[in-house]
C-alpha cells in the first residue's frame, strides 16, 4: 500500500462515515457539522489529486460559505432543539434495502468497466493554465460558461431578494 492509497483510504473512510452520520443524526445542527467534515474531507481528496485550486475553492465556498448558510437557515427556523422522529422499522428496512441494491448495482458496474487511460501525459493544473483556459474562446475554453455564470449569480441575487426581503407595503 503506497502513501497515496493510504491517504485515499483515510479520506474515503472519513467521507463515508461522516456522510452516514449526517443523514442518520437526529439533531439537525449536528447533521450540519458532520456535513462540514464531509466537505473538508472532499477537499483533502482534491489536494491528493494535486488540484490545489479546486481544493481551495472547496474549502472557501463549501466549508466556509455553504455550511454557514446551512447553519443560518437552520437557526432561522424554529423548533431547533427538537429531535427528528425515529423512522419506522418498515421504512428503515426498505430504504436500506433500496440503497444497498443501488450501491451494489453501481459499484459492480463501475468495477466491470476498464477505464481507458489517456495517452496525453498528465498535465499539472496550475493557476496559469486555469486562467488561460477560463478565458479561451476555442475548444476546451470556458469563456462562454464563465459569462453565463455571471447571469446565474445575478439571478440568484434577485431571487434571494424576492424571497427574503420584506415588502415596503406592509401597512397595517
Amino acid at each position, binding site marked *: 500500500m503506497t502513501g497515496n492509497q493510504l491517504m485515499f483510504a483515510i479520506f474515503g473512510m472519513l467521507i463515508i462515515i461522516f456522510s452516514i452520520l449526517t443523514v442518520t443524526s437526529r439533531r439537525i445542527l449536528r447533521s450540519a457539522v458532520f456535513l462540514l467534515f464531509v466537505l473538508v474531507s472532499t477537499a483533502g481528496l482534491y489536494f491528493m489529486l494535486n488540484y490545489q485550486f479546486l481544493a481551495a475553492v472547496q474549502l472557501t465556498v463549501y466549508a466556509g460559505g455553504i455550511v454557514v448558510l446551512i447553519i443560518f437557515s437552520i437557526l432561522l427556523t424554529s423548533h431547533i432543539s427538537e429531535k427528528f422522529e425515529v423512522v419506522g422499522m418498515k421504512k428503515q428496512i426498505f430504504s436500506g434495502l433500496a440503497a444497498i441494491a443501488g450501491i451494489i*448495482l*453501481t459499484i459492480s*458496474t*463501475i468495477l*466491470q*468497466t476498464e*477505464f*481507458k487511460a*489517456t495517452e496525453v501525459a498528465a498535465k499539472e493544473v496550475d493557476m496559469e493554465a486555469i486562467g488561460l483556459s477560463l478565458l479561451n*474562446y*476555442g*475548444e*476546451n*475554453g*470556458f*469563456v*462562454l*460558461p464563465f459569462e*453565463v*455564470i455571471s*447571469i*446565474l449569480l*445575478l*439571478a*440568484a441575487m*434577485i*431571487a*434571494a*431578494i*424576492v*424571497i427574503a426581503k420584506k*415588502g*415596503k*407595503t406592509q401597512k397595517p
Partner: protein
Amino acid sequence: MRLEDFLLMRHELLLTLIAIIILIAEIFTDDFKKQGIRPLSIILMAIVTIVGFLPAPTGTLFGGMYQATDMRLMMKNILNIGALIVFIQSASWLKSDDNQNKVSEFFLLLISTLIGMNFMISSGDFLMFYLGLELATIPIAALAAYDRYSNKSSEAGIKLILISALSSGILLYGISMIYGTVGSVYFDKVSVAYGATPLQIMSFIFFFTGMAFKISIVPFHLWTADVYEGAPVNVTSYLSVVSKGAAVFIFSIMLVTVFQNIAAMWKDVMWITAAITMTLGNLFAMRQNNLKRFLAFSSISQAGFIMLGIIGGSELGMAAVVYYILVYIFSNLGAFGVIAAISNASGGKENMSDYDGLYKTNPALSLTLTLALFSLAGIPPVAGFFGKFFLFTAVAEKGYWWLLTIAVLNTIISLYYYLLPVKAMFINKAETSIAYFKSDGWTKVGLIICVAGMVIVGFASVIFEYIRTLSFGL
C-alpha cells in the same frame, strides 16, 4: 469574436440586454415611474420575439460549445412566444397591492430562466447544457415562492428547489460517468465514442432519470401536483409550458444525436415510461377537483404523449414534437389564462365546483377555456387534434402498434376528464356562480393570442411543413 458571431447568439444576447434594461429601470426610477415597468417589459419581450424570427446565419461558436442551427433557433422562438404570452397574462396579476413592489423581479427572473433555456437548447457540450439547465430552474424556484405570505407558495418553492437539486445531482452523476467512459463532454465526440458497455448504459439511465424529473415523467412526477398547486397561477403556467417545453426540446435533440448509438436501448426505456406516464397521468387527473392540480396531472399525461414523437426517432417525430409543443403552449396557456383571470377576480377560486354555471355569467371566458380544453384533448377543429395526429403518425410509421393502441385509449379517457370542466360551466346549475367581471386589456390580449394560435396553427399547414424541413432524425 467577430461581429457576425454576436448575430448567432442573438436570442441570448437580446434577452440579456432587456434584462439589463429592466434592472436599470428598476434601480433608477421612483415608485411612480415603476408603473411603467410592466408595459416596458412586455414590449421589450415582444420585440425580442419578433427579432428572433428574422432570418440570420447559423453556425457553431466557442469550439462547438455553442451551436445555432435552424431547428434550435425555431425552438427558441417557440419558447419566446410562450414566455411573451405568460408576460402578457401576468400583467393584471402583478398590478395587485401584494405584488406591486416586486414587479420587475418577476420579469427579471423569468427572463433569466429564458436565457438559461436558450443556452441549454444551443448547447454543444454537457457543461453548457448543465449550466443552462440550472439557470433555467433555480430562479423558477424563487418565483414559485413569490407569494410570500402564503404557506402553500413557500412549500411549492422549497419542493421545487429540493427536487431540482436532487435531479441535478442524479443528472451530474450520469454526466460524470459519460465523461469517465468517453473522455470528453462535447456532444459530437460523445456521440461517436458512445457504446453500449454496462457503465454507459447506466450513465444513460442516470441521465434519463434526471431529465425525467424535469419533464415530470412517471415515476418521477410526484413533485408536480404540489408545486403546480402552490405556485401562483402565472408561474405554474410558465413552469408547465415553457420550462417543460425547453427540457423536451433539448432532450429530443440529445437522444437522436448524442445517444444515437444506443437508440435501441433508449427506445425501450421510453416506450415503457411513455405508456405509464400517459395512463397514470390520466387516471390521477380524473380525480382532481382543484383546477391547477387537474392541469398538473393533465400536463403529466401530455408529457407522455410528447414522448411518443421522440420514440419514433425519425425527423417526422421531431417535427411532431416541436409542433405539438407549439400547440401545447397556446392551449395550455389559454386554459391557465382563464383560470388566472377567474382566480384573480374571485379571490382565489380554483375548484371545479366553483365553475358551475360560469357560461351564464362569463360566456367569453367559458368559451376560451372550452376551446383550450378541446385543444388539449385533441378534438378536431382546434390545433391539438393535428398535434396528436402527427405524434401518432410518427409512432405508427415505425410500427409501434401496441404503444399506439395505449395512446389512443388514453386519448379517449382524457376526453372524459377534459370535458368535466366544460360540463361544469355549461350544464351544471349553480345558485351562486362567479359573478360577471370585466377582464382588463392585457388579459384579453393574452387570451386572444392563445385562441388565435390554437386556430391558426391548426389550419395553417405551412407551419408544420416548415418545422418538418428543419427537423432531423436518427
